[in-house]
């Protein structure tokens, strides 16, 4: 076998394909080598292995220096020791050095309990710092969504790799040399002034507390505690398939009912579902899509195709920064979260007799960028935002932990009505391809005036970074493009911009896997199989829903009848649609 | 300048340039001044300009050329003087006064002046 290599690791023989690293060869036979900078999103084409932290060093016979196992490929007959005293001492020294230049405020660090450095120090039994000395004094920055504490940066470059390679955003880079080297922004600008789109994948990737989301749990609890305020909450579809992980449950566990119970226990006055607004989004976006396709087919030159989804705030920031020439292409429909806020603070508040300023809308999102989105000026009325606070799945878990309940033993509860009713189409918003599939279910029936035989469009599913599919609308082929991860989005968009690809509609999600892989989800520490399991759970949830097409949601139908009128009508346009801004100057940091 | 066409062409050019730059029998006094960064920093350029002027005044016909580092950092500026019929001599610590002495004493009268540096290396040619 020409392409197989046999080597010995800790006295055990192992045969692996040529090109395998020592690290992977060792793991294949259950030998665990600790790592820190190594970060791989399997299947997403992203691997950070600068070989720079030097935690994974091993002894290779015949080599004078220790080798970084993550960056050294195996060779025939190689003899490796992963746990010799030389290796252990070196590893401890390396981590000791990291700790010597790391703030020791673990008790209140946002990463406490999730910190890979903390775990490593513990695993290596480090109980004091041998090589203590001066600590770096760098920038601490609080942006609308992300907090950067450069003092905690360990230069693993994971954030830099996801920001540059996965997302092609290019906001983060190593700056300075020597002891002063740290990952920062160019010219050490604030994130908001850079090309950063607040997608938060850097937060998801950061092994320590150098990058974290802005924490809003205290404000939310204060609002609940305030008797003058009515506090309502909406939960995004991807949250319910990931929250359980924070309580030791298997990835992909569906905990919708337990989540609702917990939210009620917390004291939210009403627990609603963003899925309701997702159905609403389909009504608006689907209608807009059909209208644009129909006019385009009639030869209306003022209409541009493809229409692109606009529910992902990271994606919106991305095209505003990078594709200012294409601002007329995305759907003008607001994101489900913002539609929910608009309906809650107008229709529902009025119906309930609650004054706008007394209503607090909280959203639970798998997302970091939502924190930024809800603060955008166009989503405020007289300074009062439609959505007051957006919490991540992780923040929700933190709040649930305060209840002192055993989460997995909580009984199930239902969402409150009317803004808690949703269809299977809304649930799949949490997966890449889900929004366009949901839109297709509705658009097909409206366009063809026929009922769908099979509601599942499996051709739109999968984890391939860029996907293309053609859906037959009863004789009319509709070309659909899908991308998840902004690097993939860029590939697709560049093709569209260059006129090399013709699509009717495109769905884009900023995070790999869609919202299930969102930056606000429980840390997966580079284990992408967790994201895949959440994705499966999303489709299971859809299958079990009695109604699976958005336009069949009775509460949505009632909302149009009672309040909105027609989809994309005047009122709907005013409340549920938005516009975009040219933010290309941020690309150059001017 | 025309383009070199072949090995033979290069050889003939070499012979032509040799006659110009390093003839077997030197007919003219030659002064080479070490003009690497360090030499220039130590004043080699001023010394060269001065010598050019001074030699005109004295009516001496001398070829001045710049060269790279001769290696005697401790004695910059340094220069090498080749007078027909004599072995070439390297002088170090050359300031304007010593430059004058080199012209009037060594070149004109074969009288050595202070600052001679015995060449302590062999050059491969």
């Amino acid at each position, binding site marked *: 076998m020409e392409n197989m290599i046999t080597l010995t690791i800790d006295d055990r023989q192992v045969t692996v394909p040529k090109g395998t690293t020592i690290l992977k060869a060792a793991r294949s036979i259950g030998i665990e080598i600790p790592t820190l900078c190594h970060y791989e999103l399997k299947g997403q084409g992203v691997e950070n292995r600068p*070989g720079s932290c030097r935690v994974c060093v091993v002894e290779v016979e015949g080599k004078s220096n220790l080798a970084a196992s993550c960056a050294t490929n195996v060779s025939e007959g190689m003899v490796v020791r992963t746990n010799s005293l*030389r290796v252990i001492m070196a590893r401890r020294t390396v981590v000791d050095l990291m700790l010597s230049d790391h703030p020791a405020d673990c008790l209140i660090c946002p990463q406490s309990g999730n910190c890979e450095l903390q775990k490593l120090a513990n695993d290596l039994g480090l109980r004091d710092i041998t090589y203590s000395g001066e600590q770096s004094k760098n920038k601490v920055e609080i942006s609308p969504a992300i907090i950067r504490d450069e003092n905690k940066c360990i230069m693993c470059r994971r954030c830099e790799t996801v920001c540059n390679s996965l997302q092609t955003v290019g906001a983060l880079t190593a700056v300075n040399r020597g002891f002063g*080297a740290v990952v920062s922004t160019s010219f050490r600008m604030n994130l908001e002034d850079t090309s950063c789109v607040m997608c938060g994948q850097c937060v998801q990737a950061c092994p320590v507390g150098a990058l974290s989301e802005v924490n809003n749990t205290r404000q939310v609890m204060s609002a609940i505690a305030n008797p003058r305020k009515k506090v309502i909450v909406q939960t995004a579809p991807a949250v319910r398939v990931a929250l359980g992980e924070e309580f030791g449950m298997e990835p992909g566990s569906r905990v919708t009912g337990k989540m609702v119970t917990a939210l009620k226990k917390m004291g939210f006055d009403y627990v609603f579902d963003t899925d309701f607004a997702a159905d609403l989004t389909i009504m608006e976006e689907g209608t807009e899509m059909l209208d644009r396709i129909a006019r385009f087919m009639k030869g209306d030159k003022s209409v541009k195709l493809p229409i692109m989804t606009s529910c992902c705030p990271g994606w919106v920031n991305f095209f505003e920064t990078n594709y200012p020439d294409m601002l007329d292409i995305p759907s003008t429909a607001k994101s489900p979260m913002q539609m929910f806020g608009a309906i809650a603070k107008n229709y529902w508040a009025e119906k309930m007799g609650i004054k706008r300023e007394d209503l607090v809308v909280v959203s639970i999102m798998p997302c970091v960028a939502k924190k930024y989105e809800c603060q955008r000026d166009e989503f405020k009325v007289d300074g009062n935002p439609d959505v007051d606070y957006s919490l991540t799945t992780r923040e929700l878990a933190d709040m649930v932990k305060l209840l002192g309940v055993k989460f997995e033993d909580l009984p199930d509860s239902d969402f409150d009505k009317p803004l808690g009713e949703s269809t299977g189409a809304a649930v799949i918003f949490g997966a890449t391809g889900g929004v366009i599939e949901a839109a297709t279910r509705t658009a097909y029936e409206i366009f063809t005036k026929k009922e769908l035989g099979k509601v599942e469009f499996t051709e739109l599913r999968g984890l391939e970074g860029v996907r293309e599919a053609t859906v037959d609308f009863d004789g009319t082929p509709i070309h659909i493009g899908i991308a998840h991860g902004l690097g993939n989005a860029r590939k697709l968009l560049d093709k569209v911009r260059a006129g090399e690809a013709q699509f009717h509609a495109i769905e884009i999600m900023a995070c790999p896997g869609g919202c299930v892989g969102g930056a606000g989800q429980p840390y997966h520490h580079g284990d992408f199989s967790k994201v895949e399991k959440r994705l499966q759970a999303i489709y299971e949830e859809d299958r079990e829903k009695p109604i699976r097409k958005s336009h069949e949601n009775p509460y949505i139908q009632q909302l149009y009848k009672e309040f909105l009128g027609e989809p994309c009508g005047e009122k709907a346009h005013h409340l549920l649609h938005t516009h975009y801004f040219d933010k290309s100057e941020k690309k150059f940091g001017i | 300048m025309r383009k070199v066409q*072949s090995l033979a062409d*290069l050889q003939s050019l070499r012979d032509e*340039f040799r006659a110009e730059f390093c003839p077997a029998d030197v007919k003219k006094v030659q002064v080479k001044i070490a003009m690497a960064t360090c030499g*220039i920093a130590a004043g080699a350029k001023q010394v060269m300009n001065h010598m050019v002027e001074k030699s005109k005044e004295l009516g001496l016909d001398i070829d001045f050329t710049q060269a790279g580092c001769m290696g005697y*950092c401790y004695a910059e500026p340094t220069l090498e003087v080749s007078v027909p019929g004599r072995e070439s001599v390297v002088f170090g610590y050359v300031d304007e006064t010593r430059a004058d002495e080199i012209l009037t004493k060594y070149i004109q009268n074969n009288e050595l002046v202070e600052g001679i540096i*015995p060449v*302590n290396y062999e050059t491969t040619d």
Partner: protein
Amino acid sequence: MATYNKHILVCGGSCCTSGNSAQIADNFKSTLAEKNLSNDVQVIQTGCFGLCDQGPVVKIMPDNTIYTHVKPNDVRRIVEEHIEGGKKVEDLLYVNPITGERVEDNKEPNKFHKKQIRIALRNCGVIDPENIKDYIAHDGYMALAKCLTEYTPEQVIEVVSASGLSGRGGAGFPTGKKWASSARAKADQKYVVCNADEGDPGAFMDRSILEGDPNSVLEAMAICGYAIGADKGLIYIRAEYPLAIERLKIAISQAEEMGLLGDNIMNSGFNFHIELRYGAGAFVCGEATALIHSMEGKRGEPTFKPPRTSEKGYNLKPTNVNNVETYANVPIIITKGAEWFSSIGTANSKGTKVFALAGKVNNVGLIEVPMGTTLREIIYEIGGGIKDNKKFKAVQTGGPSGGCLTERHLDIPIDYKSLTQAGSMMGSGGMVIMDESSCMVSIAKFYLDFTVPESCGKCTPCRIGNKRLYEMLDKITKGNGTMEDLEHLRNLSVVIKDTALCGLGQSSPNPILSTLDNFWDEYVEHVQDKKCRAGACKDLVQYEINPAVCVGCTACSRNCPVEAIKGELKKPHQIDNSICIKCGTCITKCKFNAIRIK
């Protein structure tokens, strides 16, 4: 008017001066005057002959007679027997160290006492670097022409391999092997890169070559391009070398004008173009992968190997990277042959090495010696010995990556292997000589002070570890070190070497390890006795005025910038060490040597 027919050259180098050569010169003058020969024979003092172990040295011109071990009372014999009698003084004649014979005429070959052979520097100081004709007159571009017309690319690599030439940038990787690897790699585009990012403190070998003989590097790069199948060359040069850049630009345009670079060189069908790329002067960019990242417009930091740059280099294409001095050796290897080159040097290191000799030697300079030359020969014969007759203490080679060697290493023949075995390394060619006034702890600290900010900061051991090493050294030089610190210093140094990503970190602790090994007592003194024997660590020394010597001239107290010196006129002064900042001004101002450091 004098019309000299003979010159008597008396060595005025410091070794010979200490051997009373001034007296010898005076004796010559008086003896000649006595014999009325003053107008026929000139006596002149010269610089160092480099025969320091045989001094004082006298040379009679134009006879080319060298006399060694000359004493003042030998002068009369030389004048009477040689100058007047025309007969050489047999027992004073220079002895050929190889044959053991006494040499009467040292004109040609005058090689025996010349410790230096200039190969890489062969044209430096000889030709006009701004005129390609001068280079051609010295066989320039003949090697390229020979390769293009007589050799296949494989044969070129064979010659380079057989010559035993190895990388002069420091690591000593066999050049032929490197070229062969790039030649083997298959790609639509390959590159030849010249690393002119000379960064060791005090090293200027490459700059001197580029300033003195830029064409030799261009020619070598073209030869390399022919050998590996590349048509593009890039010179990565630091922007702080404006003269080298200027001369390279002139050389490139002249070579292009003459068709020695460019398309279809000498009608061979071979194309080769060279461009300059400027570095901002980051030490780490001398590392090949970091250099390539820098040229690509990326952050200048190394990446792990493999892949080597010969397989995936600039723009991920096969790229041969050699440094300036390595290239400068290539043309002459082609013209004179591999055998000639490999006959110079030692069994495992061939050819010569250029060093920037600096520090406390008399003749600091740029030298080129055959591999196998000893440190003693370099310091005492070429360097002319230690300045001010002080005692030799250590020699530092290899720059910030190297180590300090001592008296007991002086007779080791220098090559890549021997220096590494001794605890230092060849490096790119910095060589700093230290005397007893150098504090070895401070020396180690000096190099770490350089390495800490020059680390790219990528890997943990180099980014943080070097900083910690520096902090410990700083603590020791300030008198706050403990014996535990010395243990930590060694342990951390070992781990940094063992775990760092690139050559910078893998060698940055060397100055510490070598000084710990060779000067352990000095470290212990700093820690336990709070004493710096060299008097270099300000916090560990006190200035004192010797009352027996001080005459009370007030020069010291008038010049003390912090008014730490008190005393009445004409009475011994005192220094208040609680105020004194140890600037040393008083010592330089005192004409009576009354102030000492204890």
